[in-house]
């Protein structure tokens, strides 16, 4: 253990979800001093989100299929000596020459107290957020992210409505519908834009990942039990209501996600939970120049080495930041990274030659292959823009419509998200394009010859809004050291 109070931690882990927890406890158990930072008040990340102690949930596992795995990680965390820094919003990570890394965060009751955490290595496990595609009416109150509805239910024990349609694309929809129905909501339908036949193209990958088939069966059974119909090759193409959701129109789609005219069917509901897969949170790493790779679903993830290191030495990553793949993959990668960091800092390369490391790497590669199959099966088809109208809001923050963006593309020659942003302000608001980025990239690509320019990797110099006072005032007394 460090002997001086000003000494940096060996490792700072950013994100206390499955990947970060696994990495932190592994490194802690191997004798490293570890700080585990997370914006939330409790560990678990989004997947293992659970009620705060004050809510007195006797059976939090009722909202989780894999609670035992999280409970085990949490027990190990308690015994490991890892410092858990809750309510720490990391906004940037820096390194001066070859010295230690500094993670800059905001904390405190008002969320504006700056702190710095210094460490010799960083493990980035920042997770993911939901990919959204706009449609007419998607800004009405009552339209919520599918993952958002799940998060509010898991942590706050609340529902957005009584009759909740679940729509979009990806396996998360089945889990969300199953949770909402189990918690008392009526789910009139799950609307999936893809066909689920995409998985059939890679039967060997499916056979090698039986846990994923089991998961699907569990959610499928829940849907059957609650009599929830699953409509594939369909999408919500309009939301009805003036100040909140009263109904949605669901249309059939062709193979390219183009809505088929005349197929619209109205479903009464008071809420809509919607999402189109997940996007890796990579901005802390791309800001440092880390290389990215393009996943089969068009998202950008960090490019990682065999032992989870990014292209920037001393910076490791695990879980969804390296590509969407689920919690088991995140745990395997977190453990691998924890071992790799310990091997590097302690000068013990033999640590990475163990049988455990070979097993973890094999499991990781197998699960990554499945994740790629899944990503390809649910990748948005190019025809989705067919359900937009010129009046549809694309950028929720700056209230920029499809018409405004199309004018910038066809009238003013914008060919990429950056130019569209400069001309229209789309992506310039509070969320910095997190919600509209995918849509703006697709609309901008419509002006190019090939029509399919992929969105560029996420680049944001600050990962969360920072008060100017916090930028100006970096007092040394707020340093968190081991």
């Amino acid at each position, binding site marked *: 253990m460090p002997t001086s109070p000003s000494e940096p931690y060996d490792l700072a882990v950013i994100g206390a979800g499955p990947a970060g927890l696994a990495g932190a406890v592994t490194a802690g158990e191997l004798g490293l001093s570890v700080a585990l930072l997370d914006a939330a008040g409790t560990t678990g990340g989004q997947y293992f989100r659970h009620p705060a102690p*004050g*809510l007195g949930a006797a059976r939090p596992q009722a909202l989780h299929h894999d609670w035992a795995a999280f409970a085990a990680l949490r027990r190990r965390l308690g015994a490991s000596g890892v410092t858990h820094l809750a309510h720490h919003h990391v906004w940037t990570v820096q390194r001066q020459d070859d010295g230690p890394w500094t993670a800059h965060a905001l904390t405190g009751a008002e969320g504006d107290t700056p702190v710095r955490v210094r460490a010799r290595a960083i493990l980035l496990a920042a997770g993911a957020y939901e990919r959204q595609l706009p449609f007419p009416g998607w800004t009405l109150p009552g339209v919520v992210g599918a993952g958002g509805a799940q998060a509010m239910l898991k942590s706050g*024990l*609340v529902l957005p409505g009584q009759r909740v349609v679940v729509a979009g694309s990806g396996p998360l929809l089945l889990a969300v519908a199953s949770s909402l129905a189990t918690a008392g909501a009526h789910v009139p339908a799950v609307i999936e834009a893809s066909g689920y036949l995409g998985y059939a193209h890679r039967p060997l990958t499916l056979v090698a990942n039986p846990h994923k088939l089991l998961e699907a069966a569990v959610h499928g059974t829940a849907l059957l039990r609650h009599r929830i119909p699953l409509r594939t090759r369909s999408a919500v193409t309009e939301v009805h209501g003036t100040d909140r959701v009263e109904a949605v129109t669901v249309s059939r789609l062709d193979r390219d996600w183009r809505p088929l005219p005349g197929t619209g069917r109205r479903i009464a509901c008071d809420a809509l939970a919607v999402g189109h897969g997940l996007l890796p949170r990579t901005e802390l790493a791309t800001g440092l120049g880390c290389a990215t790779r393009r996943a089969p679903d068009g998202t950008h993830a960090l490019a990682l080495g065999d032992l989870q290191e990014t292209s920037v030495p001393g910076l490791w990553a695990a879980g969804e930041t390296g590509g969407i793949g689920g919690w088991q993959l995140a745990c395997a990668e977190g453990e691998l990274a924890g071992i790799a960091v310990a091997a590097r800092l302690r000068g013990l390369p033999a640590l990475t030659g163990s049988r455990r490391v070979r097993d973890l790497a094999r499991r990781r590669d197998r699960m990554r292959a499945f994740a790629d199959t899944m990503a390809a099966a649910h990748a948005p088809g190019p025809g989705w823009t067919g359900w937009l109208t010129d009046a549809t809001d694309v950028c929720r923050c700056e209230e920029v419509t499809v018409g405004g963006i199309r004018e910038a593309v066809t009238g003013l020659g914008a060919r990429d998200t950056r130019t569209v942003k400069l001309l229209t302000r789309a992506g310039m*608001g509070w969320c910095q394009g997190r919600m509209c980025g995918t849509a703006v990239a697709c609309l901008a690509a419509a002006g190019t010859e090939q029509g399919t320019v992929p969105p560029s990797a996420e680049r944001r110099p600050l990962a969360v809004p920072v008060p100017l006072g916090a930028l100006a005032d970096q007092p040394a007394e707020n340093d968190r050291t081991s």
Partner: protein
Amino acid sequence: MARTPADLVEAEPDPPFEITFDGRTVTALPGQSVAAALWGAGILAWRTTRHGGRPRGAFCGIGQCYDCLATVNGEPNRRACLVPARPGDAITTQEGHGHADLAV
């Protein structure tokens, strides 16, 4: 079958407390975010947009979209899905950027 999320997880919360939303009393449970307390009272919107004056509330639910910004105890631009509700909190609908008092 569970009728409410609280039934499902067999919740026995600490004593509830009161907050207000635009002057109306709302009951919150310890450990809930401001957004969760408002959803629990059937309130889905607590902000109006800067240009169209349109109602908005929680969307992403995990602090990424900033649609759930609310004025909490006079302080605008707080993410209601992240801020824990505390007894006596006064939540008010945030109009636009929430700094109308700074206009000249």
